């Protein structure tokens, strides 16, 4: 399945967002996620299906003003 993660193309067989994060190497990391522009909470990643063409944002704490 072809998806976009942080503007980078990926081709992975994930069924849901939790699987996708694990396959992309984010296991155990403190990140927040959005799918196609909408927030997906940590609790609902496993029940959020991933479809071909989906756009995923994975964000972490950074410096800010």
């Amino acid at each position, binding site marked *: 399945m072809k998806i976009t993660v*942080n*503007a980078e193309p990926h081709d992975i067989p994930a069924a849901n967002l939790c699987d996708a994060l694990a396959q*992309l*190497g*984010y296991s155990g*990391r*403190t*990140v*927040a*996620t*959005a799918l196609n*522009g*909408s*927030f997906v*909470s*940590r609790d609902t990643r496993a029940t959020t299906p991933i479809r071909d063409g989906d756009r995923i*944002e*994975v*964000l*972490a*704490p*950074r*410096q*800010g*003003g």
Partner: protein
Amino acid sequence: MRLYDEEISSRLLLGTAQYPSPSILQRAIRDSGAEIVTVSLRREGADGADGFRDCIRQTGVRVLPNTAGCHTARDAITTAHMARELFSTSWIKLEVIGHADNLQPDIFGLIEAARVLSADGFSVFPYTTDDLVVGEKLIDAGCRVLMPWGAPIGSAQGLRNADALRSMRSHFADVPLIVDAGIGRPSDAAEAMEIGMDAVLTNTAVAKAGDPALMARAMAMAVEAGHIGFCADPMNRRETAVPSTPVLGLADFG
């Protein structure tokens, strides 16, 4: 000062970006005496480290996540939700940018996002202009703090329109007002506080100083001096000189 029912002692809020190193950032936070620092969310690679998160945790300060870089209400709302989960706080410094060059707030998107987020339980700190009507709309939307700009972000121009900030102080007598953006020097921070602002938020002026930790200390002192000066009720300006030394008893050497 009370911000969303939290008692905060320091009237200086500090941004955490652009410091030469994490250790200098930590020293600047410590020497500023700030109890609140702003942070952001950015894309994370799978090989990233949690260094920044740990760096801030070690200082023990409260974080105020921002939505910097968002140009629509929708993006800001999504970012705010991600920030609430990531930082375990309902506080959000709401930025909806309307102009790429001067980073001026899009006040229409700002009000829209403020309304949605306030209804969803967020404590919204809106980065706004010094317009009174916009301020009223933000209060109506649920904001209990306003953060008017002093000048464009990162410009170090000081208070471009001090009279407008005075009007805000007068109009929003019971609303905490935090000058956000444009502070360049300690005297700018002191001026904001002498006007009666409740606090000042600065980042670039400290981070880009030759000695950030020393500038953080200077900003803290300026903020405190300005606030005490405001509380002391400064005298009014006069158009002419008035002798300070008593005239009565002046010798006549004629």
